[in-house]
């Protein structure tokens, strides 16, 4: 009981709920004092969250170090913290490995919830006619599925970068450990807000939240906007941290062109995060201001224009797809050479291609608005810039293929997932071309073609690579191996389930199945194919179940992992599994490429092994020794 009460999370939730109640009560008092009816959902809940979230953060302990600093205490620098035990995962802990695990676990939980939402919605669309959901409920489930999945992807991206980047560049921690903890902890209320969105009436706009619909949608919309805003700030602050870490904390000898590709993709991702997230943040804030205070951004009667939202939204949300997928592509670039025992082909180009993608991604947002009534002359430039992305992504795909060519390939679970990811991502990229070409897009826009396309990019760029990453780095993180048989079962079910779910969606889209609908015309003859899709979706769910069982069972009872089970060369594998609290007792000396597999005499780095002067080793569930 004592331990339970000492958990930052619990203290935070209690403080947060109390703060929310106070904020809501105050607003209601003020409203009735001014002669308005006390209850106005948007204003009252907004005030509640404005008080509740800081209260919650204070309860978690995200502010205590800064507060001490203001009062004149010294600030603890990265690596000053010593405390072991499972409770540290439920409080504001500055260690990047703890935070990485926190992010990843949260991400998996959110993915599970969002997946369940869509599994329910898929039951509804498996046959024409309205089965058991009202159209509004269907739309809410579908919209929440979308936004929660994307939120989970952002969390997962932060998780991977947090855990891996400091290790890979030979740093003791991130540049700003406390800001790092703060960035994680503001995502937790976002998750709660999203969970509350459904009981609060949901919202029917899809994840994009376009006005004017979003200015009129139920309260759930507002909770979603606030959640988006919090995750957005987490993303921005995380980006600042990643950039500063990569630019300033590299070990001696770790020149930019000696960094593992994953670090390069993290760098490009962080750049996108700090530049573009602001645009979507302000776009959603404008919706909020219009809802709560009656401003006129998107109301033509008040001089507004709904296209403003779409511009700001896609100015972020197109680059955002690269925030979602770049780290995943980086994971593939890490895994393919290890399991092919060959150097990564075209290292320099691959490293720079991430930046090519990032820069190109900034100038294409209009391709989402071909049917929205933007100026005619803008369409062609956006179409041309869109096609350019083929160059940098092509570089990556060819690099993976050439790396595998004549390699000694071993089909271990991480490699299997990486291979599926490459195939899926390729299909996703190719099917995007008709979306980017004006005449074809006018036809397929807002159909299941688009749904199929972006699930290919997201599964190929994030989900499958994230699975590969978990199978690859789990031994490093926990010191135990994941069960290989269950892993391969997971891979087989998920791969088959994926293709059977999503390939038919292209056909459905071309044959007139619109996206974001609960019902469709039986005369279209789409029923049987939709049934196939729904059944296959449950196969994906089953595969995830296998995965979760494997995670829990292996973390608890798995075989002990050696330091470097895959014979990889990057720095994190030169440490014990799990790595020591402060990674490297002395900075490693980096001498060459991380990918010199099979090249005689090639050395990436010299690492002085940990474990000497009383350095504690730690990991999941290691109990405190005092």
């Amino acid at each position, binding site marked *: 009981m004592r331990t339970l009460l000492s958990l930052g999370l619990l203290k935070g939730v209690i403080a947060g709920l109390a703060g929310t109640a106070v904020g809501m009560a105050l607003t209601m008092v003020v409203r009735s004092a001014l002669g308005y009816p006390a209850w106005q959902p948007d204003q009252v809940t907004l005030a509640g969250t404005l008080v509740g979230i800081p209260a919650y953060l204070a309860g978690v302990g995200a502010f205590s170090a800064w507060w001490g*600093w*203001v*009062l*004149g205490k010294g600030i*603890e*620098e*990265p*690596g*000053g913290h010593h405390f072991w035990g499972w409770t540290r995962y439920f409080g504001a802990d500055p260690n990047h490995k703890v935070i990485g695990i926190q992010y990843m676990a949260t991400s998996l939980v959110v993915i599970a919830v969002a997946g369940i939402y869509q599994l329910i919605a898929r039951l509804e669309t498996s046959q024409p006619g309205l089965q058991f959901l009202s159209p509004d409920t269907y739309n809410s489930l579908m919209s929440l599925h979308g936004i929660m999945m994307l939120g989970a992807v952002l969390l997962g991206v932060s998780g991977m970068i947090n855990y891996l980047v400091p290790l890979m560049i030979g740093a*003791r921690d991130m*540049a*700003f450990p406390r*800001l790092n903890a703060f960035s994680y902890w503001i995502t937790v209320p976002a998750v709660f807000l999203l969970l509350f969105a459904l009981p609060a009436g949901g919202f029917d706009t899809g994840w994009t939240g376009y006005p004017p619909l979003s200015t009129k949608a139920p309260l759930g919309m507002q909770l979603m906007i606030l959640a988006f805003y919090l995750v957005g700030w987490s993303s*921005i*602050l995380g*980006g*600042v*941290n990643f*950039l*500063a870490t990569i*630019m*300033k*904390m590299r070990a*001696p000898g770790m020149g930019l062109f000696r960094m593992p590709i994953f670090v390069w993709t993290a760098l490009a991702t962080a750049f996108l995060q*700090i*530049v*573009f*997230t*602001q*645009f979507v*943040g*302000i*776009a959603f804030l*404008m919706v909020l*201001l219009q809802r709560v*205070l*009656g*401003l*006129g*951004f998107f109301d033509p009667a*008040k*001089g*507004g*224009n709904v296209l*403003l939202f779409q*511009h*700001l939204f896609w*100015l972020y949300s197109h680059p955002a797809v690269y925030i979602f997928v770049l780290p995943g592509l980086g994971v593939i670039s890490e895994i393919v050479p290890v399991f092919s025992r060959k150097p990564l082909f075209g290292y320099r180009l691959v490293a720079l291609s991430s930046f090519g993608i990032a820069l190109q991604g900034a100038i294409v947002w209009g391709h989402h608005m071909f049917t929205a009534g933007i100026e005619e002359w803008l369409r062609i430039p956006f179409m041309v810039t869109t096609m350019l992305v083929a160059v940098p992504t092509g570089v990556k795909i060819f690099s993976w293929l050439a790396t595998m060519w004549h390699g000694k390939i071993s089909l271990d679970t991480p490699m299997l997932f990486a291979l599926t990811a490459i195939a899926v991502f390729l299909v996703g990229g190719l099917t995007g071309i008709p979306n980017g070409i004006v005449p074809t897009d006018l036809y397929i826009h807002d159909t299941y073609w688009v749904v199929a396309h972006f699930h290919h990019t997201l599964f190929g760029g994030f989900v499958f690579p994230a699975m590969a990453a978990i199978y690859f780095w789990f031994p490093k993180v926990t010191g135990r191996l994941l069960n290989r048989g269950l892993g391969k079962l997971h891979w087989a079910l998920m791969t088959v389930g994926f293709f059977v779910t999503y390939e038919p969606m292209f056909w459905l889209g071309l044959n007139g199945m619109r996206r974001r609908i609960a019902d469709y015309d039986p005369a279209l003859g789409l029923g049987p194919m939709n049934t196939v899709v729904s059944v296959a979706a449950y196969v994906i769910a089953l595969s995830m179940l296998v995965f979760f069982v494997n995670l829990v069972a292996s973390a608890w009872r798995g075989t002990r992992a050696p330091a470097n089970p895959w014979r990889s060369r990057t720095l994190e594998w030169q440490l014990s599994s799990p790595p020591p609290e402060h990674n490297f007792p*002395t*900075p490693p000396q980096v001498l060459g490429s991380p990918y010199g597999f099979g090249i005689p005499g090639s050395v990436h780095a010299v690492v002085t092994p940990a474990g000497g002067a009383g350095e504690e080793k730690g990991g999941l569930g290691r109990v405190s020794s005092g």
Partner: protein
Amino acid sequence: MAAAAKTRGEDRVAIYRLGLWLFMGSESFLFLALLFSRFYLQGVQRPAELNQPLGLVISIVLLLSSLSAYRGETCAVYGDQAGFRRNILVTIGLGFLFLVGVGIEWSEGFHFFPPSTGFGTVFFTLTGFHAFHVLTGVLALAAVLVRGRKVQYGPGSYWAVEGAVKYWHFVDVAWVFIYPTLYLVS
């Protein structure tokens, strides 16, 4: 742990500095988006009822606060605690004066171009966001002052002051762009 930072050849202040610049860089895209919205929705229109003299005066007040902030930082760099405290206090006062000016403009604006009109929407949002940043800047300066009661700033140990003051200047730079965008274009 400062010793550990030394042995690793890390320059913590350089890292803090970079982080702050990255943060301000990100924030400047927020203001960029707001400025873009002004032109997208309202073109270069402006109502005749804007209080032009007031606009100029509060702009100069903000510039003056940047000067005192700069002086406060310089004093801190050279270890002049009294000068530091005096100048930062002046800065905070000028910051509040600026906010009062914005408040006056707001109360006039409510009559002539309320927030439910085209220009009002843009005007209140831009000035509101900026005023919020001024407020956070005041908080940062106050935090540095409070810390200064326990800690002596001086050569080699003035990052706290430098950071808060940099942020203050950033808020001023934002206003340098917002002011003509709202008051002067036509």
